[in-house]
């Protein structure tokens, strides 16, 4: 009986193809006949194969390590060769700095991308907001110019003037925030209601009303009519005691063509008078809510009163047509009176008593203006 070790000798010879033909046939016959014997051969193959593979693995590992050692040695040799002088100054990097350098080295692409995304987001947001704001503004009607004054634009002139004043009397000019826009407004009733154009107070955060004598009052919008470009304001200051009796009355019917009319307003820091005639009983593009008047008006005139010779208020300055000579538009006073009437009936909280008598009739124009000027105000708008 052969031992397992003897069979191993046989197997090794068989695998190495060293068996004589009869012995090999004998072995193969036995392998075919006896499954457990065949299993022994399989085990032997696995064992032998694994051992050889293991040996090969160890040898290869040594080989690779040798390659690496060669490469490392080459790298060192190269460095020595390249620097030439071993006493070359070396850069000493602290641990923290090395960490930072490694961090930068491995993340700089990510950082760059993040930074550009941040920059794009910031500018995108800013531009987006600008664009949105522009979109919020009503599209300007072609050829129609609203006459509210952009204070910012003339600020520079004003500053130059201030400087001039300072040079003259050596006292520091008062530094008042001039607001962003300004227009004109006038008294509607003795108890502190005012009228101006809607587009003057459009988008306002706060409103300041300033009289010719430089009294300031805070006001708030009570009612607005976008279509007729009208706004009714109320002065909310506690120390306000009313305007007193208003000298003019409001015309409830339509005025006649050719009527000589004039306006007072604040296109600049001072009250400005202008006159002309009533040219048409319809406004821009045939709008029947407006008159066309031939008064030269400027930004800042908006919301100013338009009066006829007898001192009747017939309209409120709204805008002008820029491509036509001297064509200004004013809201008809009949719409204002109708608006006031409906406000009176709709709510009890507003007591707007329109003046019934007219103190201006029959007086000369300079006299009329002298009486009128105290009831015309600058409306300053802060956004």
């Amino acid at each position, binding site marked *: 009986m052969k031992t397992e*070790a003897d069979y191993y000798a046989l197997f090794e010879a068989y695998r190495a193809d060293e068996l004589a033909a009869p012995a090999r046939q004998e072995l193969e016959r036995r392998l075919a006949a006896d499954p457990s014997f065949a299993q022994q051969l399989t085990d032997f193959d696995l*064992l032998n194969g694994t*051992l*050889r*593979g293991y*040996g090969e693995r160890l*040898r290869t590992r040594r080989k690779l390590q040798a*390659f690496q050692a060669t490469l490392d040695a080459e790298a060192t040799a190269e460095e020595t060769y390249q620097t030439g002088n071993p006493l070359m100054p070396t850069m000493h990097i602290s641990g923290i700095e090395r960490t930072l350098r490694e961090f930068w080295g491995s993340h700089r692409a990510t950082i760059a991308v993040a930074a550009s995304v941040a920059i794009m987001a910031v500018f995108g947001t800013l531009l987006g907001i600008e664009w949105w704001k522009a979109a919020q503004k009503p599209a300007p009607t072609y050829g129609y110019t609203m006459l509210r004054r952009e204070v910012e634009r003339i600020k520079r002139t004003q500053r130059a003037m201030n400087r001039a004043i300072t040079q003259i009397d050596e006292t520091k000019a008062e530094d008042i925030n001039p607001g962003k826009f300004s227009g004109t407004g006038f008294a509607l009733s003795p108890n502190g209601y005012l009228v101006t154009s809607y587009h003057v107070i459009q988008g306002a955060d706060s409103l300041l009303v300033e009289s010719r004598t430089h009294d300031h009052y805070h006001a708030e919008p009570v009612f607005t009519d976008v279509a007729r470009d009208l706004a009714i304001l109320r002065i909310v200051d506690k120390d306000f005691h009313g305007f007193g009796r208003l000298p003019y009355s409001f015309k409830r019917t339509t005025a006649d063509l050719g009527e000589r009319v004039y306006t007072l307003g604040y296109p600049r820091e001072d009250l400005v008078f202008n006159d002309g005639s009533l040219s048409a009983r319809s406004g821009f593009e045939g709008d029947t809510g407006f008159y066309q008047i031939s008064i030269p008006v400027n930004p800042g005139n908006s919301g100013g009163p338009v009066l006829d010779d007898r001192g009747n208020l017939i309209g409120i300055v709204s805008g002008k047509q820029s491509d036509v000579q001297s064509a200004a538009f004013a809201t008809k006073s009949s719409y204002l009176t109708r608006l006031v009437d409906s406000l009176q009936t709709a709510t009890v909280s507003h007591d707007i008593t329109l003046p019934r008598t007219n103190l201006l009739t029959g007086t000369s124009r300079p006299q009329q203006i002298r009486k009128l000027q105290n009831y015309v105000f600058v409306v300053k708008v802060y956004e």
Partner: protein
Amino acid sequence: MGKGLPSYTDAEFVAAIRQGDDRALAQLYRLHLPMVLHLIQQNSGTEDEAKDVYQEGVMVFYEKVRDGSLELSCQIKTYLYAVCRRLWLKRLAEKNRFGGSLSDHEPYLETGAEQDLLDAQERDRRFAMMGEALERIGEPCRSLLEGFYLLDKSMQELTAEFGYTNADNAKNQKYKCLVRLKKLFFTHYQEEESF
């Protein structure tokens, strides 16, 4: 390289390495080392770790080539990259520092490398058990088997070294040792297998 070293195409590399040409292997090793160094150093590894992973990766490639079972569907470079990438992911996972993805600087393709790696892992397990079995077999069997299989010594050398009277004696001793090794190895192998 410009160092007077022979340059090979991929096919020539495979052919030369299969024939056991160490110069080709050394050349291959040198050629792709920077790529893997870069990959691993970019992904929070040190230079030593990179060399380690690279050697393991080359080993997988080498054994497949020697085996004759390599089915290369891409460049050797891509294959090595895939293998080393996979190995490094595994190590990172073991180190618990893996953040979810690697930043690749080479196009990463699905190669046959994944399957090859699984095979290699199976082989690693077998080799580890063989090493353990060899540790436990005791002298003189261990020295004899190591001498023959691992250090590639001939039976004549071993006969002289161990003081056997002739080569047949040494051979008989070797077979006995093999039988013992088989028992040690297979008890473990089957235990592991049953898991």
